Structures are given as C-alpha cells and as structure tokens.
C-alpha cells in the first residue's frame, strides 16, 4: 500500500458542491433499498392490510365505506409511513455511514433533505400510486379518488419530513419504534385533518383549490424547517453514541 496523494490544505472553493453531494446520498439510499426489495414492499403490504381491516372490523356497507374511505386510506398511509421511519437513519447509524454523512463538508440539513426525499420516493410515492386501487375497494368515486391521490401526493412528503425529526431524535434508543410514534403522531394531525378534509370537501362538491394550497403551505413549511430540526437532532443523537 502506498498513498499517492500529496498533503496540502484544501481551500474552501475546492469542496464538492451541494447538489452532487445530495444526489450521491439520494442515489445510495435508492440503491441500497432496491437491493432489499422486501423492506420496500412491507409498508405497502401493511397499507393494504390496514385498509382491509375496516370493512372487516366496522362495516362493509357501501355507504359507510364511501363516507369513511378517504379517512381510512389516510390513516393507513400515515401508519405505514410511521412504520417505515425507523429505517430512515437506523441502518446508516449502525454501519457508520451516518457519521460519515455528518462529517461531509456540505451543510448537513441538505444531506438530510436528500435522505428524506429518498425515503419519500421509496415509501410515500408507492402509497400514492397504490391509493387508487384501494380507493376503488372502499367505493370512492372517481373524483374523490383523484383528489385523495393529490392530497396524498402533497401530504406524504410532509409525513416523511416531520418523521425524519422523530427518527433522528430516537436514534440509538431502546424501543425507538414506539417512542417515535408517540412523538410524531401529534405532529401528523394537521396533515391528516387537511388531507381528509379536502377529500370531504370535494365530495360535497366544494372547490378544493384553497385546501390544496394550504396543504402545499404545510409542505413548504416542512421543507424549510424540518431538515434543520432533523439535522440538529442527528448531531445530538450521534454525540451520545
């Protein structure tokens, strides 16, 4: 073995840019996820199973399902995102990748954002794509299904972003999974309310533009604030390990 590189201080302008670094983080997460398909599938299966519990547990009547359908789908989607959050940083924490991420010269919150986006692409987006099928199973009409998917499309990234804070805070703790849910569920409530509320408004024939804009505002807020909080939480959790 012999080191080729010469020794000199690297000035700031030689740093790798933020975007290529984010892209590398994003792609690595996608790649590792696709090497472990089952982990990708599990939240989706969970989603389908939870939704099917309601007709079985409450009532298969068309009128009930039509009324409760969007709420059922939203709650099930929320729970499957919650279930998948534990993985967001856990593997990276265990194998030391997370330490290396924190030590990259790029701003940590942007790298965290890249990881969170990867998480959404791997869990939230498939849920959105699966939602129409389940929407049909709970007898939602075409318009409601379209609105529902749109709310999920805007809402699930918010779930991933807020969830990242909880995942970062509970990193390395025993029984982190339950604790994570405990911390995060209250913070999910506004998204749930407006997600289902929008579908209900659409079913009543009201215009949903305003509601969608509000959900969009949640997304913007979460995009700007959550990565900072998650990055701070990551540093704290790593400092303790």
């Amino acid at each position, binding site marked *: 073995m012999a080191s080729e590189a010469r020794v000199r201080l690297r000035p700031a302008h030689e740093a790798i840019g933020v975007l290529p670094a984010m892209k590398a983080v994003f792609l690595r997460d996608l790649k590792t996820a696709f090497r472990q398909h089952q982990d990708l599938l599990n939240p989706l299966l969970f989603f389908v199973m939870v939704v099917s519990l309601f007709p079985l547990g409450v009532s298969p009547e068309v009128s009930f399902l039509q009324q409760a359908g969007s709420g059922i789908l939203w709650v099930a989607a929320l729970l499957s995102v919650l279930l998948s959050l534990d993985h967001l940083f856990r593997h990276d924490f265990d194998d030391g990748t997370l330490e290396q991420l924190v030590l990259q010269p790029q701003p940590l919150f942007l790298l965290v954002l890249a990881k969170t986006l990867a998480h959404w692409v791997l869990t939230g987006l498939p849920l959105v794509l699966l939602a129409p099928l389940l929407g049909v199973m709970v007898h939602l009409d075409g318009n409601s299904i379209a609105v529902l998917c749109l709310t999920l499309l805007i809402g699930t990234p918010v779930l991933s972003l*807020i969830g990242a*804070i909880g995942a970062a*805070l*509970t990193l390395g*703790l*025993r*029984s982190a999974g339950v*604790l994570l849910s*405990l*911390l995060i*569920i*209250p*913070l999910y*409530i*506004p998204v749930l*309310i*407006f997600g289902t*509320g929008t579908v*209900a*408004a659409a079913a009543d024939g009201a215009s949903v533009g305003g509601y969608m804009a509000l959900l969009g505002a*949640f997304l913007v807020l979460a995009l700007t*604030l959550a990565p900072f*909080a998650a990055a*701070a*939480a990551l540093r*704290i*959790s790593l*400092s*303790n390990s």
Partner: protein
Amino acid sequence: MWQFFHKLGSPKWFFGIANRLMPWLLWGGAVLLLAGLVWGLAFAPKDYLQGNSYRIIFIHVPSAFLAQSVYIMMAVAAVVTLVWRMKLADVFVKAAAPVGAVLTFLALFTGAVWGKPTWGTWWIWDARLTSMLILLFLYFGVIALGAAISDEKSSARAVAVLVLVGVVNIPIIKYSVEWWNTLHQPATFKLTEKPSMPIEMWLPLLLSVLGLYLIFGWFACLRMQTEILTRERRTRWVKELVQAEGN
C-alpha cells in the same frame, strides 16, 4: 448583564434564590387562588343559561390557560438550552413537563365534567377539548423522550429540539382542529364567551388564574430544587447542604 446571566445558569445560585422566592410564591398563590375560588364558587352570580354548573370554569379555565403557557415557557427554556447550553433551562423543562401534563389533564377532566350537564355527554369532540388532548399528547412525548435518553446533556438537547418542533406546531394544530371542527359539527356552544361575561365572573377568574400561576411557580421551583439535588449530588455544596440539614 452577562454576569447575571452566567449566575442564573449556576444551579447552586438558583437553589438559594428559589429558597427565598418559594414562600412568597406559595402564600401569594394560595391566597389569590383561594380568594378567586371562594368568590367564584360561592359568591359570583349564577349564569342565566347554565345555572351553577358553569362554575367549574374557575378551575377549568386557569388550568387550560396555564397548561398552554407552560408549554410556551418550556419552549423558551428549550431555546436557552440549545443556544447557551444552560443546565438550569433543561432542569426547568424536565420539572415543568409533568406539571404541564397534569394541568392539561385537569383541563380535559373539568371540561368533561362540565360537558355532562351542558351537552349531556362526558366527551364531545369540541375544538378546544381536542386541541387540549393533542397538547396532552405533546407533553407525553416530551416526557417519554426525556426518560428514554440516559445521558443528561443529550437528553436536554434532544428534548429541547422536540419542544421547539412542538411549539411551532401548536398554532398549526389549533388552527386545523378548529377548521376540522367547523367542517364536522358547526359550533353551537362555546365554552367561554368572554365578552358576555359580567365583571363579577371574570374578576374571580382572573384571581384564580394569577393564583395558579404563582402556585405553578412555587411547584416548579420545588421540583427544580429536587432535580438539581439529584443531578449535583456529587458536588461539594450539595454534600455540605445535606450535612447541614442532617444536623
């Protein structure tokens, strides 16, 4: 100014100050609260609509009020923890969170008791009650996270981050719950109609709110002192203090 700030961070200094402050807080609070409650429960006029059952607001409103303020106070302490790494701020958060949770529970409980004669049911998904329920969840989260992290410094900072995330969310939660409430059941009755309340009603209410604040101050000091003694048990001043108490 900075020296004062620095002193404020010293647990030993706080311990002494708290000792001097606590009797005032306790007695002042007790007098105000008692006056407010006696006035409110026994002498304030009956409500023309609800009769005597409304009188529970003299407990309900102060606890609900304080339950929310405590979270805000915790958020301020959280900023201090994160920015200045002041130990005492975290001691406050840890001491205040369970008290906040109890107050929130008290507000919910009295709300339910009030609901029975007013709405004919113990629980109603009213916007305020629902918001309080979510606030209770937030308190539970803070307490659970604090208990889960054994390292004192990490626990302090992690809890601080969570409290701040929570405080950003509280207005959003409140707003969405109110919107959700109007969507599902137009509000027919509001718990407190402030403008229509005669002065004989809101003056005792004000007294009991102030009284409860002072009592909270006393109780927070007490819990902080306990927490400080536990944390600083190995320092010389605590050992000397314990010895002096023992003699």
